[in-house]
């Protein structure tokens, strides 16, 4: 049941006479409803991979297909939760989501239905109390919640999360991870999350895709996390399956593909 498939994908950026090969020959298939984490050292091109799936960057070679259709431009069927929330500061929380909902459902839903849909998504991330606030008036964690609500409100086929909790403190991050897990359990979305946090990857993902270091990074290894859901971070900490998965990711990142700062 291939839902999203990435086949022999390569990406290089040409800058004058210099060509930088960022990604080479990446092949990955993701099932509907699956949660995949992509992990790797910084600069390995994992964000580029996500941008390619989002359609924000053009593919150099290879192809991406989603639900039988080739991806070659950005669109609301691949909603992105950006690392720095990217809410529009001049709009209220409600209006930020409204912009997306009006664009995606302007023709298919009535005004009242759209309003209900916006509030439903705000409820989902527990942010309906701040509907009339501007992004500057709420905390970083809350902004990221709204970013998630905006992405979910597009009813995407795939939800792409680009290091969504990277800029948050550890406690807020844990809350949001729980929120994402709950949403995934409730809605069964297909999700791809970029992260550099091993615990986060193991806790959330069904599969962890580990990237080798760039240039010309590719998929080094894929670990299947066979832990039952719902997952509880405290009980998980002592489970042998969890420990084993965590260890294999750590071993990949720090033994076999140690990040060398001077590797240029």
């Amino acid at each position: 049941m291939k839902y999203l498939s990435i086949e022999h994908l390569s990406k290089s950026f040409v800058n004058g006479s210099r060509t930088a090969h960022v990604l080479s020959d990446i092949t990955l298939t993701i099932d509907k409803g699956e949660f995949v984490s992509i992990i790797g050292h910084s600069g390995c091109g994992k964000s580029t991979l996500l941008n390619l799936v989002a359609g924000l960057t053009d593919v150099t070679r290879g192809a991406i297909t989603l639900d039988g259709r080739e991806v070659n431009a950005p669109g609301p069927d691949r909603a992105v939760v950006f690392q720095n929330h990217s809410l529009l500061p001049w709009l209220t929380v409600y209006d930020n989501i409204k912009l997306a909902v009006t664009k995606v459902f302007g023709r298919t839903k009535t005004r009242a239905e759209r309003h209900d849909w916006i509030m439903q998504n705000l409820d989902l991330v527990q942010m309906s109390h701040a509907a009339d606030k501007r992004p500057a008036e709420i905390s970083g964690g809350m902004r990221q919640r709204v970013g998630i609500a905006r992405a979910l409100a597009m009813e995407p086929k795939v939800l792409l999360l680009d290091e969504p909790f990277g800029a948050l403190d550890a406690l807020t991050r844990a809350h949001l991870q729980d929120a994402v897990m709950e949403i995934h359990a409730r809605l069964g979305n297909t999700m791809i999350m970029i992260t550099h946090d091993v615990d986060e990857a193991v806790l959330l993902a069904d599969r962890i895709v580990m990237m080798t270091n760039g240039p010309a990074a590719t998929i080094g290894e894929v670990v299947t996390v066979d832990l039952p859901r719902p997952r509880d971070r405290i009980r998980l900490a002592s489970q042998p399956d969890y420990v084993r998965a965590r260890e294999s990711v750590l071993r990949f990142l720090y033994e076999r593909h140690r990040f060398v700062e001077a590797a240029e």
Partner: protein
Amino acid sequence: MNVTALKRKLDLTPKPAAPVVALPPRSTPRRAAWRKRGQALAAGVLPPLAVLVVLLTIWQVGASGEGSGLPTPVQVWIDSGFLILEPFYVYGTQDIGLGWRVLTSLERVAYGFGLAAVVGVLTGAVIGQSALMMRGFDPIFQILRTVPPLAWLPISLAAFMDSGPSAIFVIFITAIWPVIINTAAGVRAIPQDYRNVAAVLRLNQIEFFWKIMVPAAAPYIFSGLRIGVGLSWLAIVAAEMLTGGVGIGFFIWDAWNSSRLSDIIVALAYIGGTGFILDRLVGWIGRVVSRGTAA
């Protein structure tokens, strides 16, 4: 919870260690607020008022000599006080109050500057979107914007064959450059994040313009408009001196030709005041419109 428990809880209220002396309120909060507002107003108004009085005194003393060519402030008041007291009198088609003249000039500025604002923002938005266009157009704009307003007037007269549209064109061509340049800079400064959001939502060009570009670039656009409105007001007075009509600029030229120096000085005060109000008005609109953008 039973009653005894409640009572015990009530006993926990803090008690003062020493007897508390209630001080009488010095003034009601409302009166204090009024006083504060009055003080703030005085702090804003008194210093410029004092400077004005000092300057007028220096002027009075300096211009009271025997061979002085300029009227003193007192003389100005005696000669032309009615121009200040009655801005909106009408004694004939050419003999009208300075208020009317300022309004006539403002009407021309409204046409010229309004056109410059619309065309300038649109042009700036298009140019700001493309690095290549920016590279091509920017040097030309930088040269054209330094051309003094009046230098455009002969060409304008030749093209329009009429003083009315010529004056409006001079305003337009003077005000448009800062609007274009600032809008283009503002559009270039739109963060990639907002562009990504627009791309994911598949906003079309028009939606992108209204929903992302205008609000994101509003602070830049309005600083361009503010410079532009100042320049238009500079240009209209000069243009009217040459093209005639009933504007405030022509009034000065007319007064000079009939040696009414006091009238000129009053007209200068009108021009300065109007320019100041225009500048503040555009600045205020900009603050209201771009509220939240900077945050």
